[in-house]
């Protein structure tokens, strides 16, 4: 394998893992509420920015990251309580506009509170790159991949082995039936926003040492995460992970071999093609429509 190909694979997997985390956030909220949360990217921004700000303020790095994920989660819970819950039952487009409004609001707040500087975050364990087959591998890449793997495993355990997780799955399958057996749909909604926001913030803190962070990084990361979730089939957990990794690899290979200026375009071209030929995503199945 040539060094260039290996290098593209490394960077593709790194970014892909981040997209996968964001896509999982989309999937969790979608399953609980059928809402596409366009503010998902802002949780990523909050995770990275808050971690960088806390480190600047003198907090140790691990504590900063935990605090940043906690802050992201809090914002997610507030978003659900203050904006999504009061609008329950509104048409889909209305809910989309609400979450887009939330993303603009959060971006504006970040620019006000944390200013518009680009901020760095120190790598979790040193900057010295490892050399593998002629390609360089940043230690942070291992952190990204390892943490993503751990997060996916934890989610699998949560959804398959705990009562709360099973309750969330039940709501995604049949809301009314879940309610009838005594599951609080409102609590499930709240938990889904908190969980998604925490995942997003974690992704933001993980990628910040590699790509820096700023008040406006949430837009593209959110859209790519949405694209990954759609590519995998919305609402499917394994689909979200596969979609994220695929999108990251497409981007990295496209940037490495075709044109780096069109990096963002490849992802969406492949996505459009996939949507046209696989209208329900890689892992999704068509919905049965009732009239």
């Amino acid at each position, binding site marked *: 394998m040539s060094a260039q190909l290996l290098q593209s694979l490394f960077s593709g997997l790194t970014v892909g893992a981040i997209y996968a985390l964001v896509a999982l956030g989309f999937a969790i909220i979608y399953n609980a509420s059928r809402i596409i949360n366009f503010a998902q990217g802002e949780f990523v921004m909050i995770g990275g920015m808050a971690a960088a700000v806390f480190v600047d303020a003198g907090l140790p790095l691990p504590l900063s990251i935990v605090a940043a994920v906690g802050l992201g989660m809090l914002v997610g819970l507030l978003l659900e309580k203050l904006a999504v819950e009061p609008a329950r039952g509104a048409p889909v487009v209305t809910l989309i506009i609400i979450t887009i409004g*939330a993303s603009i609001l959060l971006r504006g707040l970040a620019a006000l509170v944390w200013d518009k500087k680009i901020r760095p975050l120190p790598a979790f364990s040193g900057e010295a790159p490892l050399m593998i087959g002629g390609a360089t591998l940043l230690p942070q890449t291992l952190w990204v991949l390892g943490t993503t793997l751990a997060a996916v495993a934890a989610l699998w355990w949560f959804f398959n082995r705990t009562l709360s997780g099973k309750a969330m799955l039940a709501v995604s399958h049949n809301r009314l039936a879940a309610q009838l057996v005594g599951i609080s749909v409102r609590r499930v909604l709240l938990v889904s926003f908190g969980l998604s926001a925490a995942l997003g913030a974690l992704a933001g803190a993980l990628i910040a040492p590699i790509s820096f962070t700023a008040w406006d990084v949430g837009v593209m990361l959110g*859209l790519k995460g949405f694209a990954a979730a759609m590519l995998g089939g919305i609402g499917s957990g394994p689909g979200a992970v596969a979609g994220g990794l695929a999108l990251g690899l497409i981007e990295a290979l496209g940037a490495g071999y075709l044109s780096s200026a069109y990096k*963002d*375009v490849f992802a969406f071209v492949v996505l459009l093609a996939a*949507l046209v030929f696989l209208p329900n995503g890689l892992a999704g199945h068509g919905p049965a*429509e009732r009239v």
Partner: protein
Amino acid sequence: MAAAPLALPNNYTYEVAILVGLNAVVCVGLNLLVGYAGQISLGHAGFFGLGAYASAILAARYGWPPALSLPAAVAGVAVLAWLVGRPILRLRGHYLAMATLGLGIIVSQVLATEDRITGGPDGMTVVPIAVFGITLSGERLWYWIVGTLLIATVWLAQNLIDSPRGRALRALHGAEIAAAAAGIDAARHKLGAFVLSAALAALAGALTAHYSGFITPSKASFLHSIELVTMVVFGGMASTFGAVVGAAVLTTLPQLLAGFKDYELVTLGALMMLTMIFMPRGLVPTLEKALDAARRKPR
């Protein structure tokens, strides 16, 4: 609208009124697709930008007179919308939203990257329109041009909605399968609304470019697409006048907030959320309903 000039004290207010009119043309078209046919598009700024750039490039780089390049650009965008609309409109709900969003992003990235033709992220200057040797310039003249266009668009939309095609579109919104079972060619009607709304966006885009004399890729960006959809939903879906009101409010607001640049995003975001939470059906339908209820109240 004819009375508005009396209330407009200077060129700046005329300029805002012209922008309102151009955005309203886009929104009335987009409302046909989103509000009536129920097909969401998060990429209409792409058509707006394509129309603007196509006309500007034909005029500036190939020497076409703008009176010719403008209709050519609109026709070109309509053909393109027809070509991409055919496969894309088979998608539903969030998948359609994703596909249109992707289209818009591809357009804006191409416009920003092909800098030898488009001038890149810094944008390009656009020549003014001349008809029979007379250059169209001046805020007052443009006000009347855009005003006439807006009235024509609203008239067209209102007629379309009350025609059999319009009823077919509304049936699609209700339940696509039921509409198809009733003999409505769903694909054809959706495509029609898509192409018409794209052409109106392209027309408004090209006019905006020639009027302001300058165009940047930000006009084709995701954020602009969002602004357009927000105008439609804010004003009220499935209400042509709602689309006009939405365009008016959300075009004027940033101008009013220009003095508080730092708070612009926060205000816009909060406004979008509050309106949608408290008036999920949009401004005009909510007010209409309130008026209706007040009128029916027994005295």
